[in-house]
């Protein structure tokens, strides 16, 4: 009975991992195809700290992941080791709580599980969105050098209509290694110092063909409810897209007295991915690892399309940060104002320019108390965010509730709220 329950939930919820549209290639799989727009987004990983501050923090130093947002933050960063950091983000938490899905899951039994899964998927709205992300990372900095290993699982959604069965779910797995170096130049002693930094990131991204509930249910019925019958679909029949990029980020901080600094970061230079569409996970394994994961005979060609380019444009961000140190460790406020992708404002005038400026601006503030507690607040394109952090020796816990815009411009009001929880050991 327990297995059956699990299976039912797998079908309705986790079953989304099983794309089953392999029967009739060629598939729409590229970022230029409507369902896949989000796969081309540059990879940066989820920072609960930054999200709690409204997405701002280009010039905020002192955290193990600061250099991932601005390589210049490596200058004088000293030794830091985060081992590991785990972040889980659930999207639509408010709607999930209101949907009654949790109550249904608590009831248990087949009916509760099915109803809970149905209500959980029912919160996914029309357009683009995310469902769940999990980030795992390890970061090390020393003497101006920084190294970070990151892995992220991201479940994206795209829904063209209102019906639950029309929800496209795209599972993406990204692995990245970032190597950075930063140095400080004391341009005018006690007046101005300049931090310069460079990050080189090697990113490997994979995602599975989008799928909807209908083919999953269909294949499940074909397999008479046996999970094993779905396995070949996942491993052998579903096209998988994988590819790499080596984006570069260059950053600079101009540090002034009283904790004031100005930052500039050119990120995702050379960010285009070289992608290959494989016939399945088995075909990917055979091509790259010389290993198939199941005995099934190939269903598709091993490589459906090789060496195509997925464009991911670079951007130029500016930041202003005020992080005074004269108050010591009792209370340490930070204010950060970032203007991201400033080139998006190009050619705009008057009201349109004002609106574009607000869209590109991230505002954040945090207060650190007794070197132990952080309280954060921010505005990301006008959407509020809150966050808290707690450090005790080597253990760190952060939480943030925030809203992200998925529409074209903040005024589209196409947004999703998200709740992130992070746990890490080592340096904060």
């Amino acid at each position, binding site marked *: 009975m327990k297995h059956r329950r699990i299976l039912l939930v797998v079908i309705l919820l986790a079953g989304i991992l099983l794309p089953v549209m392999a029967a*009739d290639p060629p598939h729409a799989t590229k970022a230029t195809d409507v*369902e896949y727009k989000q796969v081309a987004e540059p990879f940066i990983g989820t920072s609960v700290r930054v999200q709690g501050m409204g997405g701002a923090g280009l010039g905020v130093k002192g955290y193990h992941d600061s250099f991932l947002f601005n390589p210049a933050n490596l200058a004088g960063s000293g030794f830091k080791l985060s081992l590991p950091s785990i972040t*889980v983000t659930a999207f639509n*938490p*408010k709607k999930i*709580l*209101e949907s*009654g899905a*949790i*109550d249904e*899951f608590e009831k248990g039994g*087949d*009916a509760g599980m*099915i*109803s809970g899964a*149905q209500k959980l*998927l*029912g919160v996914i*709205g029309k*357009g683009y969105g995310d469902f769940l992300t999990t980030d795992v990372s390890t970061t090390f900095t020393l003497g101006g050098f920084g190294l970070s290993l990151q892995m992220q699982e991201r479940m994206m959604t795209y829904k*063209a*209509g*209102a*019906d*639950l*069965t*029309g929800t496209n779910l795209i599972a993406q797995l990204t692995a990245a290694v970032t190597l950075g170096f930063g140095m400080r130049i004391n341009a005018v002693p006690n007046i101005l110092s300049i931090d310069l930094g460079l990050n080189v990131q090697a990113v490997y991204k994979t995602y599975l063909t989008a799928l*909807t*509930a*209908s*083919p999953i*249910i*269909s294949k499940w*019925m*074909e397999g008479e409810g046996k999970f094993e019958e779905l396995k070949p679909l996942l491993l052998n029949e579903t096209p998988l897209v994988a590819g790499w990029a080596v984006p570069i980020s260059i950053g600079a901080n101009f540090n002034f007295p009283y904790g004031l600094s100005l930052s500039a970061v050119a990120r995702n230079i050379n960010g285009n991915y070289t992608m290959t569409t494989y016939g399945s996970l088995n075909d990917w394994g055979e091509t790259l690892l010389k290993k198939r994961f199941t005995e099934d005979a190939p269903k598709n060609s091993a490589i459906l399309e090789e060496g195509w380019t997925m464009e991911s444009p670079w951007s130029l961000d500016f930041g202003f940060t005020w992080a005074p140190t004269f108050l010591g460790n009792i209370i340490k406020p930070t204010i950060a104002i970032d203007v991201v992708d400033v080139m998006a404002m190009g050619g705009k005038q008057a009201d349109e320019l004002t*609106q574009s400026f*607000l869209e590109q601006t991230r505002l954040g503030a945090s207060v650190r108390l007794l070197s132990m507690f952080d309280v954060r607040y921010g*505005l990301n*394109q*006008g959407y*509020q*965010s*809150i966050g808290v952090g707690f450090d005790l020796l080597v*253990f760190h*816990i952060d*939480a943030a*509730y925030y*809203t992200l815009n998925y*529409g*074209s*411009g*903040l*005024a*589209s*009001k*196409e947004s999703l*709220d998200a709740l992130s*929880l*992070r*746990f890490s050991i080592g340096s904060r």
Partner: protein
Amino acid sequence: MKRHIVLVLLVPILALTLISCDGDVSSGFAKFLGNFGGNVYIDGGLVEANKADVKAATSTIAGLGIGEGAKTVKEDDVINDFGINVTIPDGVTSVMKPQPKADQDKLKDDLASTLNSTQQTAELKEELKKPVSDERKEAVKGTVAVFNSTIEALKKELGSDPNTNKDLKDAIDKLKLDEVGPGDTITEGDVLLVQLMTNLISNTIGTLDEVKGADGLGSGLDDNKDKLLPIINDALFTAQIAEELSGAAGIDFSGQLDLANLLSEMNKSSRTSRDDDDDFDIADFVGSINNLGPELVKMFGMKKISGVYRWEKDGDYRQFINTQQAYRGALEHALTFAEKGSHLGKLKNRGLAFDGSSAIKYLIAVVVTELNAWEPENTKSIISKTITANEWLATGAATADTEWVEPVFDEDAGFEDFGKSYGIDDADYVKQIFTNVKRINDVAGIKQLSDLIEEFLGVDGDFDEWFNELIGKGV
């Protein structure tokens, strides 16, 4: 150290607390999160919610049916604006012209941009409910009449032999719209739909004419399959707009079903004999009925007036029927040309969103339009009396004890003899409807349903027996 362990466990403890807390706490937490919702820039008036797309779309629609978009005509004039000669019927003084290609593209772009935004879609729907001027009403009235005449003329051009290009003729015939009555209110939505249908038929005629071979219109399609794709795009876009206007696009059919109970019932029925399969017990489907019923009644546009569920004005019923006709007609148009051009595998992402409920929406449109084609007044009465007698359909208040109440129809309604009196005696016509359901389901539905339909329609299937019962030749 113990304190450290507690702190390490704080994340999972918090998470578990969150997901296992009782309803009140969950609700309280959701309320707390709600304090951080909204957008302070928009709420504070610093930025206006984006209405650029909807403004562009409504501005374009407001220009339809007047000025250069319309043509003054008189009875017995012969016009060729739709691509085929049509004689102006009695009483028609103005006709909306098919738009030039550039204007069609602009209208589609404006609408598509609007429909990409949930907020703007809602705004557009409100705008499209607004009544239009008498001048534009006359244009819509005239266009519907000429549009229907154009379809008749096109069918003739496609061959006088009923079997020549039968599939094309059947599909085109379903594009016909209900005539506008003197007391009908015409809205911006009506104008838009009529313009899109006008563009669709004009583009279809243009393409058929362009690719025609020696055998005239309807020939040469096999050699020009790629040229049929724009017709499919037009048709699916028109179907998408009709679906939005009808309200069907906003219904989450699958999400409203009580899946847990339905699956449980399926399991039960699979364990019992086939003889029991026909038993319908409301109690088994209470959840689904209560969720979907009110949504459907709302989609039908009916209201409870003096204790009776009905359409407030005749025009409301006509609008409901017109959107259903346009949805069905445009969808069948797309399917027919997709079949002709071997494009059935390319129907996704061309306007209309296909999902597990598309076949249901199509079937609703088929039932409603067939009933209306049989006898509009009776159809209004049948739907009204059925819902009034079973009010729980509209209120979503069915319980396990609720019983179906047979509505009392007028004796002369003849609903019992619907099959015979309507004259659905063409098995191929009905088979085509099932084939369409299968094709729609093939795009994004459950494969087993397609297999079942295929089996039903096959040589050894039960179609003939079922059809004979439908038309009153029961075995």
